[in-house]
Structure formats: C-alpha cells, structure tokens
C-alpha cells in the first residue's frame, strides 16, 4: 500500500517515488511485480496522471522499474541487506525523538568523516 499525505510539503510525485523506491529496495515489491497503471494509481490517490507518470519515469531512470506494453514492472535489484536494516532499526531506537532529517544529517556527517 502506498499513501499520499496532502499536508506533507514534499511534492506528490516525490512521495510516490520515495515509497516505491523503498519498497523495491527492501524487497517488499519483488522482481517482476506489476505496478498499477498510471491511470489507476492516479485515480486512487486522486492526483493527476502526469504526477504518477513522472514518479514512474524517475524510478525507471534509477533502474528500479521498466515499462513495456504490458505495463510497469519491478526490475531485479540488489536489496538492502537485512543486517543493515537491523542496524538502522537500532540507530533509530537510539535517536530519542530526533527527526528523520536530523538522523540522516548525522549519518551524512559521519559518512563524510569516514
């Protein structure tokens, strides 16, 4: 399931792209999974078809999905290792109420110093 938050300042196409990208990289959406048509997803989320089409196009440019006459399908990609996700879970638990942006910023700082 994908959700779109109308109160989130992030553009709708980016919300869609990010959630789909996460689902594909974590393996929630497996290789060969057929995504809903642009029209169906746009109708369900009550947004313009062009918004979904843009999200799909960006995912295709990232190499996560491929479009053909049969529709948009998830490609074979390397999933994020389970241990990495477990480490991330531990890290999140240790944040103590810190927001996502700050959490990512902290990772980025440490990544740069390494």
């Amino acid at each position, binding site marked *: *399931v*994908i*959700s*779109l938050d*109308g109160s989130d300042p992030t553009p709708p196409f980016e919300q869609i792209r990010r959630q789909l990208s996460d689902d594909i990289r974590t393996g929630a959406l497996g290789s060969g999974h057929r995504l809903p048509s642009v029209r*169906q*997803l746009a*109708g*369900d*989320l009550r947004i313009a078809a062009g918004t979904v089409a843009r999200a799909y196009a960006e995912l295709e440019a990232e190499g996560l999905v491929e479009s053909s006459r049969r529709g948009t399908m998830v490609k074979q990609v390397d999933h994020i290792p389970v241990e990495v996700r477990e480490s991330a879970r531990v890290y999140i638990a240790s944040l103590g109420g810190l927001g996502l942006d700050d959490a990512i910023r902290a990772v980025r700082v440490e990544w740069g110093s390494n």
Partner: protein
Amino acid sequence: VEFALILPLVVIVAAAAFLAARRGPLRTLVVADELLPAAVSANRYFRRRSLLAMLAVVVFGAVLGAGVIFGIRTGSPELVGSNIVTDPLQWLVLTPLFIGVVAVASFAFVPRFREVAEVRTAELTRRTPLTFGPRWAWAVPVVSATLLVAIVVWFGLIAEPDGRMFAYDDGPGGGFPGFSYGVPVLGGLAIIAAVAIAALLRIAGAPRPSDAALRSADDTVRLLALRITLNSVTAAITMTAGILLVWAGSTAESMARTTRIDLSGVPLPPDAALQAIGVWGTVGIWAGIACFAATVGFLVRAVSDATRTPFTSAAVSETVVSETTS
C-alpha cells in the same frame, strides 16, 4: 401474437425483480462518522444508476422489438434476405445482442466514494476484472459465446450457398440462418464482446476509496456491477442462440412433415435422411427453448443484482450508542 409470447418473460423478470427488491442488503458496514455521507451517497448513486440503466434497456428493447415486429408484419416479402439493413429477419436475430450492448454500456458505472481525508492510500497491485468475484463466473459467457459461434458456423456450413436457405435434394426446403445471417451475428458478438471488455475494465479500474470499510463497500458494488454485466452479456448470447436454433429447427421439422410426390403424383414416404432432418429439427427447437429458459435465468439474476441494495452503513458512534443502550 409476438408480444403475447414476450409477456411471460416480462412477468417472470418483473416478479423476480420485485422479490429481489424486498431482500436485504448484500453487506452491512460500520464506517467512521465522517465517512457515512460518502457511503450513503455511493449507495444512492448505485441504485439510481441501476434504475436508469434498466429504464434505458427496457425503452431501447421495446422500441427495437416493436420496430422489428412492425418490419416483419408490414415489410414486403422481397425484403427478407435482401440485405442487412432492410431485411427484418436480420434485425430479429441481432436484437438481443444490441439490447445487450445497451445494457452493458448502461451498467458500466460504479460510484465514487467521496472522502475528505488528508492522507490517501492505494494498493500497489494492478486491478483487473478478475480481481473481483470468482473466476468460474467468467466461464459462463465464454462458453455461451463459443456455443453461439459453433452454431453459426455449423448452420452456415449446412445451409445453401445463398446463406439463407436449407434444402434437401430438390425436395423440401425453407428459410435458414446460414452465413447470410450468421456473419452479422458474429459481428454483433464481436461488438458486445468489445463493449463488455471495455465496461469490465472500466468497472475494475475505477478509483477505490482509501478507508478499509469503504473499500469493503466498494468491493460489493463492483462485484454486483460485474455480475450484472456478465449476466446481461450471457443472456443476450443465449437469446440469440435460441432464436437461431428455433428458426433452424422449425425449418427442418417442417421439411420432414412436407409431403413429397413422385412424377405420377403419388405421395412419397419420407426417406431416412429426411426423417433424420426432422429429428434434428425437434432437437433444435428444444435446444432453442432451453436457451430461452437460460436467458430468463440470466436476466433474473441480472435484474436481481441491479435492484438489490448493495450495502447498508451505520456510523461508529450510532453503533456504540445502540450497543451501550442494549
């Protein structure tokens, strides 16, 4: 006389519709207070749409049927077998399919649930008509269409080269639904198949609500819409098959009853082949009647679904209050 024959059909379908209208809803739902107007509105839309669709089908069917009967009664005999536009028998054969097209097109709308939530959700699976309802339900129209094609091809192959007569040697013969009538039927079948596929895709692909309770209501509405479409298509096909079978059977049976005479004017007893044609004629007539009975069954099912309340909905607060007081 033809209208008198239609009367029992109308009575049975109307009685079934009346009984169906008295039945309870298919599903009872409890929805969040703020979503109750959306559920009530969708329910009302479905029932109003069904009423208008049935009205459209009845009016179209009555006008087309009356036109065909008027054409057969008043038209010049030379028009029979003339061409697809002026031959009233062509229109008689095609009428069920055309009425089916109007029915399918009229029912291809499902209500939208108007939610006001800030967060909208959507499933990441592609919806197809097969998503809703049992798969075996799809076999019925496919099998009936296959049977109709088989009947058309069979009659076309055994008919005279002109495609509208069937004769035995130089003896008896009569009007027959050969390829002259069969090819337009195949065209009509292709049209209703295309319209049905478009309607089913439209029903399956229409936007879904985000709320889980409303999705349950949405499932019910789509299931009913799909069933109405499939039953309407099947009824149109079985009716067409029935007309062809009764027509061909009547011709074959009357051929076997025809008295032939030899050159000296002595009546000839019907030979084995002619007797076999007569038996096939009887079988054809009864198969046609079976098709008409099946048509009534499919129509009753379609009307029953169209007149039924899909669901009733109650707000969570009302449910809590009633449970507390009880």
